[in-house]
């Protein structure tokens, strides 16, 4: 999937008193570029979800008012996850966050889903490493030295994630788990999901690949704003299983480029996504394993998900997804 509007900044759209919460956009096939009709969109928050079947028309367009379909409780949450899915495509989710007194908003978003076909591993790897692609900072942006800024952002954002990952290795650390920052000359762009996943297969041990883009713009108040669009791509380990892509956006004044707040938030999301990736990899492998191995793998997935949920607050992003996966794993464990 590609995001054609490079830096759609949800938080900016939400700033101030936004009008009614509106979600609209268009879903396209990333390869054929044709509109996709009948896509399912799931809206997830802590404590519930709402599925919209056949959400897109023949032009791939979707538009709806959240207030008409979600309970008030969901609209009060700090974050909401939108999952776009269709059989045979890699599901993509967008994390929406809102400021107090603002509404969730996503307007005229163009989403491209990548078919699963043609992106299967020839030799399933070991799923032990989280790879970090360098954040892309386009030449010609307002930043003084894009190359230097690219290095700074990538290093800064990766510097804290290792500490989080030490924590998630509970209760049973996966062997040889590691975080690997890829070089600045890596040609793969995080926005090209199909390419990222193929790259993941080439790496042999990729559990997931994370990266993003960053740039600047002037706000209405003429303040320079740094904008991030980050993506976490879970590499589907087993043929026929789909991966997951998650995207979230953030913005902050350029003066706070190295703010720990942003690094901490991103690292927390990376960490939580990593727990999901580990559990999903174990679940996927369990589905094709013999009975004994299946139980071991499902138990492992369950332990990881339980451990992460035990530590989560109610209003934190991804809690609904972790809980859903846990129920799925528990269901699979039943005799």
């Amino acid at each position, binding site marked *: 999937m590609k995001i054609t509007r490079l830096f759609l900044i949800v938080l900016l759209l939400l700033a101030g008193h936004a009008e009614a919460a509106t979600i609209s956009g268009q879903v396209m096939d990333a390869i054929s570029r044709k509109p996709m009709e009948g896509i399912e969109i799931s809206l997830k928050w802590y404590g519930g979800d709402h599925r919209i079947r056949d959400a897109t028309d023949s032009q791939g367009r979707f538009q709806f008012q959240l207030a008409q379909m979600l309970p008030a409780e969901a609209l009060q949450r700090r974050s909401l996850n939108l999952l776009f899915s269709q059989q045979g495509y890699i599901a993509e989710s967008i994390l929406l966050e809102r400021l107090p007194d603002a509404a969730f908003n996503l307007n005229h978003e163009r989403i491209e889903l990548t078919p699963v076909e043609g992106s299967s591993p020839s030799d399933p790897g070991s799923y032990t490493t989280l790879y970090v692609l360098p954040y892309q900072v386009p030449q010609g942006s307002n930043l003084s030295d894009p190359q230097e800024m690219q290095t700074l952002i990538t290093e800064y954002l990766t510097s804290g994630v290792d500490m989080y990952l030490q924590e998630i290795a509970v209760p049973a650390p996966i062997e040889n788990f590691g*975080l690997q920052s890829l070089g600045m000359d890596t040609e793969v762009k995080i926005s090209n999901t199909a390419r990222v996943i193929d790259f993941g297969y080439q790496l042999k041990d990729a559990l997931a690949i994370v990266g993003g883009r960053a740039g600047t713009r002037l706000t209405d108040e003429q303040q320079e704003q740094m904008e991030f669009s980050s993506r976490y791509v879970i590499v589907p380990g087993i043929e026929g299983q789909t991966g997951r892509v998650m995207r979230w956006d953030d913005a902050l004044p350029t003066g706070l480029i190295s703010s720990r707040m942003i690094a901490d938030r991103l690292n927390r999301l990376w960490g939580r996504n990593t727990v999901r990736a580990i559990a999903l990899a174990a679940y996927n492998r369990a589905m094709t394993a013999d009975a004994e191995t299946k139980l071991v793998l499902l138990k492992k997935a369950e332990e990881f998900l339980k451990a992460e949920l035990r530590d989560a607050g109610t209003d934190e992003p991804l*809690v609904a997804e972790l809980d859903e996966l846990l129920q799925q794993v528990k269901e699979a464990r039943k005799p």
Partner: protein
Amino acid sequence: MNQLIRTLFLSMMLVLSLNSGAGERVAFIPGAQIGGEKVLSHLKLKSVITEFLDPQNTGLGKSIGYLVWRETLAAISDQAGAGVILAHPPGEQRIVELLRQDYHKAALEIAKYEEAPIALWGRVTRDQGRLIVDTACTLLPEISDTALKVRLSTKDPRAADKDPLTLQAVIPRTRFSFAWVETTRKRLFERSLVTGYAGAVLRAEPNKNARKVATLPANRGLQSVDMQGAWFRVHLDDGETAYVNAGSVMLPPREVTAAGRRVQFYRNPDKGSAKLKQVKLNSLYQVLDSRYLRKGVWYRIKAGDDEGWVEGWRVTPRFSLPAVHFLAGLFRYFAQKYDIAEQEFGQFIERAGANTRNRVMATAYQLRAASRLLKERHAFDADKQAVLSDLEKASRLTPYDPSNYNLQVIAQLGAFPDESKALKALQRALALDADDPTALGLAKKLSKIADRPRDTQYRRLIRFTPQQKLEIEKLTIPR
């Protein structure tokens, strides 16, 4: 990381006293098998602090490791059988050059080898002129059975009670990443020091071969202005500066608080000296000087125009990093010094900061609640509102965690008998995780209590209605 060798610097060994907290350093080099003589092996409870990573080469990784080591020792200086080990690369080598991704594993390997159930490690970075210190702590409960247990028992050692009621829960979290602390060199290193029990040598440069400037006797106050590696730069009386190794000084807290208490100021660190004035202390006060005496520590502080010595136990120390309070709280908890543990976890909660992860804050509240429950001789005397408020806060922070509700069961049955609330809490715990071993253990225990004859100790304390008994039975059916 199983290929570490540690060269033990026994010559640098510093034991503060036979009965109090002790410190030791070990150096490690990757590339050879773990081995060598274990340090502080005579002590029951130890932690390993690993030199802090310094990826940006601020020059402070080593200093902060030493600082946290000495502060932790000061925090537990009166605790018998406790010790702190600092693990550092030999000489002036930086740990980041030796270890990269394996830093945490190395800290754990060393802790395991030294049979220390607590490992603390961290990192220092610079961010636009500010210093950012990250700290993390890992517990190894498998070492010397040091799980964080909360155990209440009706057994009275004076009574011949053959059928005691015992309730037990575990605080299961073992890994903690603390919120980063933004600080400055001045706040970390500009402070008072006291020479250790073996005295201290002052040198012209920060290395052990530099010219000796002076030799000071034990328990002599010094003023530090900065730190370089393992060496404090201190002011001398003649206005010159010299260096003293962190391993040869005690590091009192930089500041103390007293929560509005009236505290007696004395002319000297001695209760027999002239009493100056009673002063109400309701702020933070910098420690100007201190002394570690047989009967306890003394601090010299200034409050407004009043300056004098106060007894250490009358005030609450404030260490450089909230992590030091957490670590000190763990030491006190394991040693069953629950009143001081409550104070240390309270200090941690107060200072932990808005960026503290839910899991860490929830555990701090759990530990403070447990300390409040256990510090009384009879749990019935515990401050009900304070205990339940802490457990409620923990539940709000981590609502999916069954251990919050297990602890509520313990409190509601063992201290403030409310069978109905206890049962609801247990149901909640098992709804979150039907396999939670603590909750299952508690369900079995409740079932036993409900089955007991009316005249036993159990039933005198706790009475379930027939309806509640049925609900308990449902909980014990395997799912």
